[in-house]
């Protein structure tokens, strides 16, 4: 190992020793409680729809629509970032997190215009999720198709 690589290796160890760690335990608990709360809210909305006589599939769709709407409104009001700071993964993983990831850049890049600002930049955070989500579902679909063919 040359001098520079050795110095870098040593420095890396020093940095790791000095840099404070994230509070993983506390963050996990918060994520569990907040993520759970969002799911309970979703279940509540879902139950309202089913008890109002909607079928299982439409109730699930309407629930998703309402959660997305709620997230976008909270993002526009500047509140979702505050929730996210506290909840961490708890507010990222549910569908509300995905809506926030689309709405936040839309708000941020509005100044660069409706087409090249909002339109082009809206998916800078959520884009990979859509691309690889679609790709993964295609692969799964193919696997399903082949296994069914036999």
């Amino acid at each position, binding site marked *: 190992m040359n001098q520079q690589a050795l110095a870098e290796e040593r420095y890396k160890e020093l940095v790791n020793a*000095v*840099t404070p760690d994230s509070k993983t335990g506390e963050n996990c608990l918060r994520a569990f409680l907040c993520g759970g709360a969002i799911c309970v809210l979703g279940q509540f909305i879902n139950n309202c729809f089913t008890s109002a006589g909607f079928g299982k599939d439409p109730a699930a769709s309407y629930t998703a629509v309402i959660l997305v709407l709620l997230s976008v409104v909270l993002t526009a009001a500047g509140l979702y970032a505050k929730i*996210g700071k506290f909840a961490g993964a708890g507010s990222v993983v549910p569908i509300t997190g995905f809506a926030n990831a689309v709405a936040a850049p839309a708000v941020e890049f509005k100044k660069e215009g409706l087409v090249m600002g909002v339109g082009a930049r809206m998916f800078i955070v959520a884009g990979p999720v859509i691309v690889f989500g679609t790709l993964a579902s295609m692969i799964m679909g193919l696997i399903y198709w082949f296994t069914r063919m036999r």
Partner: protein
Amino acid sequence: MNKHLGAQSVWFENVVSVNAAASVVGPKEGQGPLGKYFDIVCEDNLFGADSWEKAESEFARRGLDLAVKKSGLPMDNMDYIISGDLLNQSTGSTFGVIDTKRPFFGIFGACSTIGEGMALGSVLIDGGFAYNVLAGAGSHFCAAEKQFRFPLELGSQRPPSSTWTVTGHGAVVLSNLGEGPFVTGATTGKIVDMGVKDQNNMGAVMAPAAADTIASHLRDFNRAPDYYDLILTGDLGYVGRDLLYTLMKDEGYDISRNHKDCGIEIFDRESQDTHSGGSGCACAASVFSAYFWRKLKEKSLNKVLFVPTGALLSPTSFMQGENIPAIAHAVALETSR
């Protein structure tokens, strides 16, 4: 006479006096421990503009104007303006100086910009190329988040080693006449890369550059750390400060007794939730202009080594797997010469 000293330093033969300093900051900075020292604390981060980037230019415009006003000279007497910021193509500065109609050098040194500007301005004055130079640097939290990290409203968490970009601007007027504090020497930093790739740990990126420049400065001038009342780094934060002390010990210097960091001074990390401290071009520039320049002027500090530190982060090179290089420039300020 040769004014180059040692490996990477210069000393100034003629008077270079920091005759005025001005600072303009955002509301969060105004609520911090140094709040009462800033010249202008605006009530809202947009500062009357309709985008973060335009607000950053407004901070630059107001900061530069105010520094010149405080110097008692008209803007037309500024032979050069040297300014920089964090935005692509330095638009924070270019739109900020557009009305001044003065010769302009736009510079980029990330958060070390004010040190780079003061060193270059001093060289211009000492060399007889200028009577007065206006040097400034600014940054904006929201514009920096948008450019370097995530949109502001994205619900994400910041790790404990992250720093908070200061919203504001700091500027100084350097002159060939005046009663000080004087710029007596400068050490230009080298690009230092110690293999750090963590963009949420800028203190770790910059500490080796700070240590390199401070040690070179002390060697070039043949001085001990206690020659200075204060060694003032730019925005290492808590993590970077601890690393700096260790690295300086390796170089054979103990600077822990007379060292402060602008990034640590500007915010209260507990109540203001700023984790490792403040950062950004405006951090060193506004804290020096608001507080430490005043201490030099009052002569409660007499010898200060001002070492703004910069992490030269580019989102493009970062995504291509490159390390984050860093730089630090040292400017020696003394009340007598």
